[in-house]
C-alpha cells in the first residue's frame, strides 16, 4: 500500500514520525514527508499514524 501526506493540511506536529519512523519524517519546513515507497498492507504503525494525525492529513491507497 502507498501512503500520502497532504502538505496543505499538515501542521508539523510529528505524531506520524513518532508512530511510524520508517514511513515518515519532517522536512526543513516542518511538514511531514513520506520516506517509504511502499508499506505492507495493514501495517499497524502506519495505521496508527493515519488515525493519529490531528489534521487528518495522511491517506493510504
Amino acid at each position, binding site marked *: 500500500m502507498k501512503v500520502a501526506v497532504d502538505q496543505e493540511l499538515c501542521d*508539523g506536529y510529528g505524531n506520524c*514520525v*513518532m508512530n511510524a519512523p520508517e514511513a515518515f519524517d*519532517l522536512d526543513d519546513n516542518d511538514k511531514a514527508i513520506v520516506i517509504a515507497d511502499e508499506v505492507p498492507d495493514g501495517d499497524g504503525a502506519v495505521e496508527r499514524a493515519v488515525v*493519529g494525525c490531528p489534521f487528518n492529513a495522511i491517506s493510504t491507497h
Partner: protein
Amino acid sequence: MPVSVVYDPFLNDCLQNPYPTYAEMREHYPLYHNEERDIYALSRYADVKAAASDWETFTSEESVDLDGSTLQFRPANFVDFSPPQHTEIRGLVRDAFAPKHVRKLEPLLRSHADKLMREFVERGECDIAWEYSSGLPLHIISHVIGMPEEDLPQMAYYLKTVVSRDPEDNMTLPPRAVQAGKDIRAYFTAMAEDRRKNPRDDLMSHLANTRLPSRELEEDEVTGLCFFLFMAGVDNLSGLITNTISAFLEHPDQRRLAVDDPTLVPAAVEETMRWDPPLQMMARTATRDVEYYGEKIPAGGRTVIIWGAANRDHAEWDHAEEWDITRPPKRQLGFGEGVHFCIGAPLARLQSTVAVQTLLKYAPQYAVVGEPERVLKSNIRTFEHLTISLR
C-alpha cells in the same frame, strides 16, 4: 422536554464517575444546557470533533478552563489563543517537542524510571500517582526547560499547590494556588535573566534569547510560557500514566497480556487516553449562534466539549464502555483535535509507555493499598494519591 440528567463538572458525583452521565447526554441530550451554570455541552464524537476543529466558531480566547485556570499563564497562554497569534507562539516551542528531540530523551527517561522503580521496590510500596506518575515527568520537563535538579522538590510543591482546590468551592482558585503561581513565575523570571547572561543548551535559554517572527517577546510571555509547559508537562501527563496503571489494576487479564508482551503498552496508553482521559473536557465560547438538533447555542455561550464523552460514543466504537488494549487503531480525542492538538503528545506517549513498561517489569503483580483519592478539579480525572504495593 424536561432534562432528567445533571451534568455539572464541579459536583463531586461527576468528579467521582462522570461516565453514566455522559452516556445519558449522548443518548438524550446531545446538546445539553446546564441552566444554573449557563454552560452548554457537546458529548457526541462527531460534534465534539467538529467543534474542536472549528476554532473560528468555537474560540478558546475566554480560557479553555471553566474556572479560568489558564489565565494564570498570561500573556503567552497560547492554549487560549487563536491563529495567527497562536501559530506564532506555538512555533517557539514546537521544535523542543519535535520527534527528533523527543527521541533523544528516551535514554534519560528509561534510566530515571529504573532508578525510581528500584527505590520503590526496595521500600515495598509507593504513592504511584504522586511519586512516580508526577515524579518522572517532573524530572523530564525540568531537564527540557533546564531547571537544576536541586530545585525540583520546591517546584513540585508549588505545582501541587497551584492545582489544589477546596472541596467546598472547587470553582475558585484558592489564594494559596494563586500565590504558588506567582512563585513559579518569579522562579522562571530569575531563570530567564540568568540564561540571557549564561545561555545553555536548554529551552529556557532559547526562549529568553529569541523573538517572534513579527516582534520581540515580552518578559511576561517567556515566564508564562514556561509556567504553562511546566504544568502541562507534569500535571496532565501524570494523569495519563496513573490512569493507565489504574486500568491495569482493574483488568488483570489484560495486565498479564502486557506483562508477557510489553509492545502492547503503547496501545494500552492510547486506549486509556480514549477510555479515561486525564483531561476530560475543555471550554470554548461560541462566536455566533450555532444550531444542534433543533436547539441552539447562542453567540457568547460557554460551551464544554467533552473528550471523555466523545471517546465512548457507541456510534464510533464497539463495546465503547470497556477498556480493551487489543482494539484496532482509531482516532480518539484525548489529545484534542485541530490547531489546539496537544503539542507534547509525542513526548507524553513516549513517557507514559516507558513509565508503564518499567512498572510492569519491576512489579507485574502490583496491588492497591488503602483507599485511593481522586483529584477534585473540574476538568481533570485522575488520582491525587494511589498507593500500591510492589512486592
